[in-house]
């Protein structure tokens, strides 16, 4: 094996793992049990897992069709649309949060109308958290699924069509199973990004325990006063997210 690859690979791994070691070394192991059972921590954890899952569902619902259109439909301006989809990736999340407020906020483009027509206000609600997370996380899903669709063999879809399958049947029975590994990878990335979301969430949805205070927000506020609490909360988030990802990986992605 060439050292030219192994050495940077090792350094890369070290760079990713060392901060984790730092967290583990500084963790207050003796007081861990009582810190873990603090009600605030569990509330924030539950909210984080719920909102990240809902955000992923929303991204699947809207993002998979979007990826399909980008991969399969020729239309003018497709390059521009593809670039627009990646905007949330390069936008600082706090700016994303402000942008969401300018659209869905009380004085926003749509927010005022939603409020007066349906009595729906999104900022400072759990729905707002889901929206903020979905906004930031959707590009991960769209890019992964679009890549899988482009790599998939068209001939299966064409064969299905010649055998009389409608476009919808082809999509659900041929295309989706064909890109399932890419879809799963995209969904996992999307969920992980949503789980760690901070900037857009605190800007758009604010910070209130039980309603909009997700784990990353709780960690940030704990950092203001108590470093050890912040470390414990970070570890909990880490263990739960890695646990869920590993469990899902074994289930979905063994063939990937």
């Amino acid at each position, binding site marked *: 094996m060439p050292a030219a690859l192994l050495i940077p690979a090792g350094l890369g791994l070290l760079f990713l793992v060392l901060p984790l070691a730092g967290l583990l070394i500084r963790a207050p192991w003796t007081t861990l049990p009582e810190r873990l059972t603090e009600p605030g921590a569990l509330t924030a954890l539950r909210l984080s897992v719920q909102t990240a899952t809902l955000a992923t569902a929303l991204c699947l619902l809207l993002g998979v069709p979007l990826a399909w259109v980008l991969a399969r439909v020729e239309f003018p301006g497709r390059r521009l649309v593809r670039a627009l989809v990646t905007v949330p990736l390069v936008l600082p999340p706090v700016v994303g949060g402000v942008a969401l407020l300018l659209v869905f906020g009380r*004085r926003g483009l749509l927010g005022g109308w939603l409020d007066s027509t349906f009595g729906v206000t999104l900022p*400072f609600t759990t729905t707002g958290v889901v929206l903020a997370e979905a906004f930031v996380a959707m590009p991960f899903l769209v890019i992964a699924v679009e890549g899988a669709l482009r790599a998939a063999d068209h001939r299966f879809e064409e064969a299905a069509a010649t055998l009389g399958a409608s476009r919808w049947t082809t999509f659900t029975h041929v295309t989706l199973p064909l890109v399932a590994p890419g879809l799963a990878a995209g969904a996992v990335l999307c969920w992980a990004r949503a789980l760690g979301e*901070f900037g857009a969430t605190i800007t758009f949805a604010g910070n209130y325990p039980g309603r909009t205070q997700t784990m990353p927000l709780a960690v940030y*506020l704990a950092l*203001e006063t108590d*470093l050890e609490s912040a470390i414990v909360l970070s570890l909990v988030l880490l263990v739960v997210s890695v646990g869920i990802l590993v469990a899902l990986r074994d289930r979905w992605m063994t063939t990937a």
Partner: protein
Amino acid sequence: MSARATRTAMAVVMALTVAGCAAGDDRAAGGAADGRITGAVTVFAAASLTESFRRIGKDFEAANPGSTVTLNVAGSSALANQINQGAPADVFASAAPANMATVTKAGNAEGAPTTFARNQLVIAVPRGNPGGVTGLADLSRPGVKVALCADQVPCGAAARTVLDAAGVALTPVTLEQDVKGALAKVKLGEVDAALVYRTDTRAASADVTGVEFPESARAVNDYPIVALKDAPNPDGARAFVAYVRSAPAQAVLAEAGFQAP
């Protein structure tokens, strides 16, 4: 990267690599060999000092050619943590004695802190005052959306004191991580009111009106300042602290709405 995300990242990085963050790196090591202050002076200042310290920093640079003032503004508690984790800062200006005590107790201050300003809470309302807020009691009216600072930061602690003393019970829609966060929600019109410092409403007078209320006298915040023990530029640190207490700097603070100590 946004300021907020940068701050979080900084705090985490510092927490993880305490050893790597020793002072005396390659930054211009300032000095006063010939009685003049030169080099970079790094000032960690509470978020509510943003505008005044920006001006005071400029004035200090003008008065001491060859010096540059770098400001790091954030919630006082976050700054105190960063300093205790070894951030290379010269001066710490806190919005509350409690956060200053975090630093002095850890033995990171050079000498005793001095109070250089006082600040008081007001109710910030968006232009046009859509919630019709005229006093503290209005904040607990149903339908009035209020942003407060989180209890961990000085503006939140002061708000808690004032609300408890006045016997006003309210459920805010959000607990912001610093005073500028609460103010931003008012500026955007997403809340009807927020409890912030008088100075913050002055700085944002184009979008925000400050409603004074008598109960705020119960929680007047003292702002202490101190030179730090591991300051990369100790002469610059002492000179900056002295400058903040001088007449020209006090005039800037008064104009911003701070009270004299």
